[in-house]
């Protein structure tokens, strides 16, 4: 990603495309977007990644997190045709060159978070995935899964507790 950002490196972009475009497409389809449309949006998301590469800050977000937020915004703007209110930017503006130690810490945290998510019990992980993939509130998840709302809430809470616990253990 840094090669894309700093050198506008097309080969590096192709690698990111190979990894993320099929995931973004799957993400949008799980939210109910038809395949052909999801394909177009996934291409747009990757194009946005190229054009907004300057905004990528490796000390603040992993590439996957950054792609996720671009895909999420695409789903809100173009698919749900809604506005997303964004918090005010911090007054210090874009960070100067990030500290390699911060970048490393973030990369390690991201890897641990991924491991912790994969290690969640299936019942908890699938509800967290649904909460992110779908255009669904917890009430709608309850209707779709037949699970009582209280069960959904407590499973998601358990999942978050486990993730917090994993992120604390060093």
């Amino acid at each position: 990603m840094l090669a894309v950002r700093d050198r506008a490196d097309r080969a590096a972009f192709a690698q990111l495309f190979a990894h993320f475009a099929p995931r973004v497409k799957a993400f949008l389809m799980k939210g109910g977007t038809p395949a052909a449309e999801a394909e177009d949006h996934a291409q747009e998301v990757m194009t946005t990644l190229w054009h907004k590469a300057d905004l990528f800050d490796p000390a603040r977000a992993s590439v996957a997190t950054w792609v996720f937020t671009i895909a999420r915004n695409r789903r809100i703007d173009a698919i749900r045709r809604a506005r997303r209110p964004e918090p005010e930017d911090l007054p210090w503006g874009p960070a100067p060159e990030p500290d390699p130690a911060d970048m490393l810490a973030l990369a390690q945290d991201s890897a641990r978070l991924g491991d912790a998510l994969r290690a969640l019990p299936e019942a908890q992980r699938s509800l967290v995935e649904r909460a992110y993939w779908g255009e669904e509130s917890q009430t709608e998840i309850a209707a779709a899964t037949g699970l009582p709302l209280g069960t959904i809430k407590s499973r998601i809470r358990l999942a978050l507790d486990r993730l917090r616990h994993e992120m604390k253990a060093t």
Partner: protein
Amino acid sequence: MPLDLKSRGTAISHHPTDALMMEYAAGTLPEGFALVVATHISMCDECRARLHAFEAVGGALLDSAPTCEMGEGALARVMAGLDARPARSPAPVAPQSRPQPRPPARPRGLLPEPLAGYVGGGIGSVRWKPLGLGVRTAVIPTGGSATARLLYIPAGESVPDHGHRGRELTLVLQGAFADAEGRFGPGDIECAGTEVEHTPVAEPGQDCICLAATDALLRFRALIPRLAQPLFRI
């Protein structure tokens, strides 16, 4: 990317629930609620960090998600459409390894972004409608299933006793109110569900201004607010 941050000594003591933060990070929250959460984050560094953590969960899920193969030639088409973006200009001089200390907060009006953008200016540009006893309201147009509005409660006055058929988020912008759930000052957010029935009372001293959003009509106990309800969409 801590998932758990200790308060940094801010005066804010009531924050959005994990469920709300997750829905906002996932992009599934109706716009009216998202406006309240985003405005709170503008006022609360702790929740800004929580938002990054919840977005990181989305990133980790995306990274380990199943894939769906892209169509033939998708990469070639996208590559053909890319501008020849110039290489990044070198970093500004005096590179610093840490974010600089935060400068003193910009003087800003009562309404932080993104709320100011929705209102179209400062608090002075709000067109209030009276609800009685000096309580005033102004609906903020949003799409989706939630209704957002500003509430103006004169010091010492109360919002009529009501229950909720859905969720209600109330963010204090100025002054403070108290109800059975606690005291809510500037930046505090109250998340009320169907189980909460309350009579928020503004503290004496300063008029209280709140941003509130609901996804269902409130249930007022007294008759007069029930008559006002269809008129003001509260």
